[in-house]
């Protein structure tokens, strides 16, 4: 385990640096091609050049390499790494507040949204997958397979928009119009996030966010269960006289869940990407929306800072998942 851990950590470093550099390079090229983000802030009424220069210096955008197209600006990258190491991920260009402060405000919301999505996709996904796997080629299996394929074919933004229109507006308005319904119940069908109902009003967006992964997990679990049910050790367990529930619940499921747990771990990337769309549609003031607004407003500070943190989170999650994988699967651990 120790050696595995060390090897994995050693691999992590170049990947981390590489991803951060890729990110850095993309933003640098962005500035080199489309122009100075500080200037863009002022719209039609540019302040005197001296002021712009001062601001550029403040934001670290005065490096001459930014004028040379496709220059990788390595010195700038090194400087940035130093700042990241001290927890400084820059400031947004409009309000001049630290990115970390913004994210601190938005993080709980996105966390709640992601939690709802993960619980939903995991519980329902595994349940459906196991059910379908056990009843392979029966009605339940075909139903699960058909509905998950359909779900996968629905891009998140389409589910989100359709649900917003048909559930949020049409059904939701009707429910909210009923006097007999308690107020909180109507909030579950809300069209947009409401700070007064920080959990209830995130249920619908959470389901939308988790929909794709729900389908993926159900299918993955199903395949995995079917595969493991015919594994030799399952036959061994039966030959040992183990009851059916134990054969399925312990011997099969434990093995089947290894890829599923891995998937859920990696899914954090999907969730972050999905959150950009879902939070946008449902007006959830979370990190995904922040990134997207940053992009639209051309706030290089927000985009670089936030995406860097997200990529960090994602990579660390991947590392954790890999280590978790080793915990779950002893074959990996002792290689």
């Amino acid at each position, binding site marked *: 385990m120790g050696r595995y851990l060390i090897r994995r950590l050693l691999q992590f470093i170049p990947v981390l640096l590489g991803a951060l550099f890729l990110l850095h390079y993309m933003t640098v090229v962005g500035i080199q091609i*489309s*122009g*100075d*983000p500080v*200037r*863009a802030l*002022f*719209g*039609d*009424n*540019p*302040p*005197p050049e*001296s*002021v*712009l220069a*001062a*601001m550029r210096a403040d934001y670290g955008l005065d490096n001459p390499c930014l004028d040379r197209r496709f220059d990788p600006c390595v010195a700038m990258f090194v400087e940035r790494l130093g700042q990241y190491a001290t927890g400084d991920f820059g400031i947004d260009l*409009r*309000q*001049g*507040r630290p990115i970390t402060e913004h994210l601190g*405000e*938005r993080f709980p919301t996105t966390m709640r949204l992601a939690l709802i999505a993960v619980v939903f996709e995991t519980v329902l996904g595994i349940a459906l997958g196991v059910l379908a796997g056990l009843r392979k080629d029966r009605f339940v299996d075909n139903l699960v397979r058909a509905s998950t394929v359909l779900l996968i074919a629905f891009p998140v933004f389409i589910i989100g928009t359709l649900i917003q229109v048909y559930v949020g*507006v049409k059904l939701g308005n009707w429910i*909210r119009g009923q006097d007999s319904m308690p107020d909180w119940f109507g909030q579950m069908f*809300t*069209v*947009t*996030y*409401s*700070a*007064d109902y920080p959990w209830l009003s995130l249920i619908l967006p959470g389901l939308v966010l988790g929909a794709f992964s729900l389908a993926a997990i159900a299918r993955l679990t199903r395949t995995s269960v079917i595969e493991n049910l015919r594994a030799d050790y399952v036959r061994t367990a039966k030959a040992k006289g183990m009851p059916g529930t134990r054969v399925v619940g312990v011997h099969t499921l434990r093995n089947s869940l290894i890829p599923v747990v891995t998937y859920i771990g990696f899914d954090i990337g999907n969730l972050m990407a999905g959150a950009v769309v879902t939070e*946008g*549609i449902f*007006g*959830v*003031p979370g990190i995904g*929306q922040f990134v*997207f*607004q940053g992009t*639209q*407003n*051309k706030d290089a500070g927000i985009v670089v800072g936030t995406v860097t943190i997200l990529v960090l989170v994602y990579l660390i999650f991947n590392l954790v998942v890999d280590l978790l994988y080793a915990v779950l699967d002893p074959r990996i651990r002792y290689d």
Partner: protein
Amino acid sequence: MRTMKPLRFAAIGAAFALVVAACGGGDEGDGGDDGADGGASGGSYITHVSEPEQLAPSPMCYESECGAIWSMIGEPMVSVDFESGELVFDGLLESIETEDNTVFTLTIKDGWTFHNGDPVDADALIRGWTWTQNEQNAADTAGFLGKLEGAGEANPSGLEKIDDLTVEVALSGAFVEFPKMLSFRPAFQPQAEECLQDTEACNEQPIGIGPYMMDGPWQHNQAINLVRYEDYAGEAPAEADSIQFKIEESLVNAFRDFSAGNIDLLRTTDPTVYPQAEGQYADQMIQEDQTRFTYMSFPMFEDYYKNPDLRRGISLAIDRQAIIDNVLNGIYEPSTDIVPPAMPGSRDDACEYCTFDPEQAKQLFEQGGGSEGDELTLFFNADAGHEGWVEAVGRQLAQNLGITFKLRPLPWDQYTNFIEEQKFTGPFRLGWSIDYPSPENFIRPLVDSNGDSNYGGYSNEELDGFLSQGDQQDSTDGAYEFYHQAGDVALDEMPLIPLWTGLSTIIPGDNVSNVRYDPATDDPAFGEVTVN
């Protein structure tokens, strides 16, 4: 995605500035007295803003969201009657005196205090204006003091204290509309010393002089709370005891919150939910002509667009009403002048080529050197909801002139880059909104040879002459005469195509009344709102 973005952010992009002026003559009476003698109706209500960029010092405020806050925590120097175009001294200033429209003597009313208790005097005014125009502070509204003598320096020569309540302001040239310019709140606020010493703290809890003051610091992404300032010395009404500006992520959200009863007063309805809002709240909605307009400018530096007939033809080929009805939800009015109808000095029928006449359009277009099969590229800033109508304009040009068209949406930073470096190769969309209530504010910046926002590069000596002659008149009427002549030149030559003016879409909820659209702030008059 349109729904994600505070629509009002587009305002910055489109160079929409806000003018803030208290209500004009007829409205000052009762409301003002109420505010002054504490006979307010009381209660509190909730409205909404998008998270502002910055709140203070006020000269940093050149966008609609902080503008809404400053319309209550700040005070205009003077205001302008939108009917007559005359100055009304219902603000901080007692009087403005000038002999040559170059040197102005400003007298401050006695007894005013900042929200922190400091007196508002000549020093406070000079302190504020000095800060505004100082290049080092990079104030977004510094341009308003650009005509000041010695503008940009740490101690401009144009500001001189006469006594505790009197300031002498010297401009670098005559400008008859300067007093009206003073109605723009953020740029000309006096500043408390405390604020300028620690601008960061001040940004969290701005110190103003207006009828309302901050009730605790700015709660980022949540709310900005205002409470009535009891020592307010002015006349502006402050009916409600307190106002909460709930911070909404988008206008769509704001509408949802309004529908759910979480917001009492909807400032603006997002165009995407307008059809729904119209169905639900048609009776309540307050629709008034806004003090802004949308236009397409021609790149005069491109040979193709140099012939006025071609430009006239293009303008005539656009069926404004059809686009408004079918793409823009009907919440606009076709332009008839380069100045929006709500502005003092606007005209109903000034624009000959703003009508729809496909036959004449084609004839003029070809006369001006255009021919069938030409390819026109239309430019606009992306992600601000312009896609639909620009495409519709393109389609009408294609149908009526026989051309083909391309659309080039650009992110705003690239758009500004195109503007500055004159990279446009075809008509480009822009908008302009009121800074101060004078027709000059819509003509000079857009079409004067040296106009700040004359991005098409149009130049006409005759037009420039009319403008400067107007500036030197000593009466508003006299000035308008020349400004109108300048406008006529522009509308004949068509360096830009006026398209349409928006209508406000304010919706008051059931528990507030007395809601009025204020053209000076392009917002509801928050202080007048009473809680039922």
